[in-house]
């Protein structure tokens, strides 16, 4: 049986990719942001995931408005980053895990999530930036990946509650995966920000902090928000918080907060990071002893 080690949820602002490429980690603007990540990497070194299942949103690299899937699950042997048009450096390709992808696809469709399956899929900064934050300076990524894209481009988007339930179904699928692999769940995007309109630059620290607090122990409380509620409270692109809800939904055990970081601003965005450990129910003590 696969082991779900936990979830990491993090912002994926494109400028981070540029800052990494230019090695601006100690720059006064960037230092408070990058300082949030070493504890996440220390936890990862102990958690030792083999596979990352990532909820993210494509921003017009893979998907266009001609065909816009609500939920798209990667089933490719390899995923590549590519030119996004405005200059983010590309990163090395990612190894897929088609067997796990198809297992997840079969389980999700059996649970009536009607998906788009992708045997070829470009992944954009929303996938690559968090991976670079978690595994900097690697020649080859140390994990296989299963990307799951959720539409937050063209409204209507799947509701926060629906995204949480998608995550729960992914968690059940992973638990039913008959392989001895360790899985990290990743949720990328947010927190509050708005790029477009006269309201551009909107940030809501109080709402973000409430969401980060509740996500760990009472995520269901956040699923009562509608898409429009989240846009009102967190800005148009703050709706990416649904990726955090999906990732949290996939944690099937008792969830403990390991680390959190929050910083305003990175680019136009309130940047958040949360590391949550998934402890099998009733087995917390035996795990702690091991």
């Amino acid at each position, binding site marked *: 049986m696969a082991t779900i080690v936990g979830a990491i949820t993090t912002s994926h602002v494109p*400028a981070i990719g540029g800052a990494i490429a230019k090695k601006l980690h100690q720059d006064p603007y960037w230092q408070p942001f990058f300082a949030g990540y070493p504890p996440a990497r220390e936890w990862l070194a102990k958690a030792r995931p083999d596979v990352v299942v990532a909820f993210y949103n494509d*921003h*017009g*690299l893979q998907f*266009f*408005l*001609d065909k816009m899937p609500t939920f798209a699950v990667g089933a490719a042997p390899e995923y590549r980053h*590519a*030119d*996004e*048009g*405005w*200059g983010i450096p590309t990163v090395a390709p990612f190894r897929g895990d088609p067997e796990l992808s198809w297992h997840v696809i079969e389980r999700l469709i059996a649970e009536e999530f009607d998906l788009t399956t992708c045997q070829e899929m470009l992944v954009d900064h929303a996938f690559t930036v968090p991976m670079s934050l978690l595994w900097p300076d690697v020649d080859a990524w140390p994990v296989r990946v299963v990307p799951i894209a959720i539409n937050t*481009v*063209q*409204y*209507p988007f799947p509701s926060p509650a629906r995204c949480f339930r998608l995550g729960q179904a992914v968690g059940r699928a992973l638990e039913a995966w008959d392989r001895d692999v360790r899985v990290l769940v990743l949720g990328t995007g947010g927190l509050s920000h*708005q*790029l*477009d*309109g*006269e*309201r*551009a*630059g909107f*940030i809501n*620290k109080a709402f973000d902090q409430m969401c980060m607090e509740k996500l760990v122990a009472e995520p269901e409380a956040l699923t009562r928000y509608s898409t*429009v509620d989240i*846009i*009102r409270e967190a800005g*148009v692109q703050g709706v990416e918080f649904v990726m955090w809800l999906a990732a949290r939904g996939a944690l099937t055990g008792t969830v403990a907060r390991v680390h959190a970081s929050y*910083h*305003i*601003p990175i*680019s*136009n965005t*309130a940047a958040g990071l949360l590391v949550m450990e998934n402890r099998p129910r009733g087995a917390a003590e035996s795990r702690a002893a091991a």
Partner: protein
Amino acid sequence: MKVTQAWHGIPGTTIFDGVQARKGYALNKMCYSFNSAENRAAFLADEDAYCAKFGLTPEQREAVRERNVLKLIAAGGNVYYLAKLAGIFHLDVQDLGAQQTGMTKEAFKAKLVEQGR
């Protein structure tokens, strides 16, 4: 800030719904093409011809000519695709934010920092 879409009532905000997606299709399709360096070069070489190839409406063509983000959004543009157009002119999302709010870039950045306090 005025409300531009009655159905949600959030001021200064255009949610990219089906109405916008239909209105903006040609504009967004052109912007999506800018994932390719070759297409970005073709746009710079002959902007009129490139816009004509994608069948932009007069409103969209005017908004592109003026590099006016609010007009581009009113014409159906989605900010994720528009960012690829802006990238051609080396404008980042803070340049876009400053233009849309009528602020200098420095003032816009200061407003962002202020919200963290």
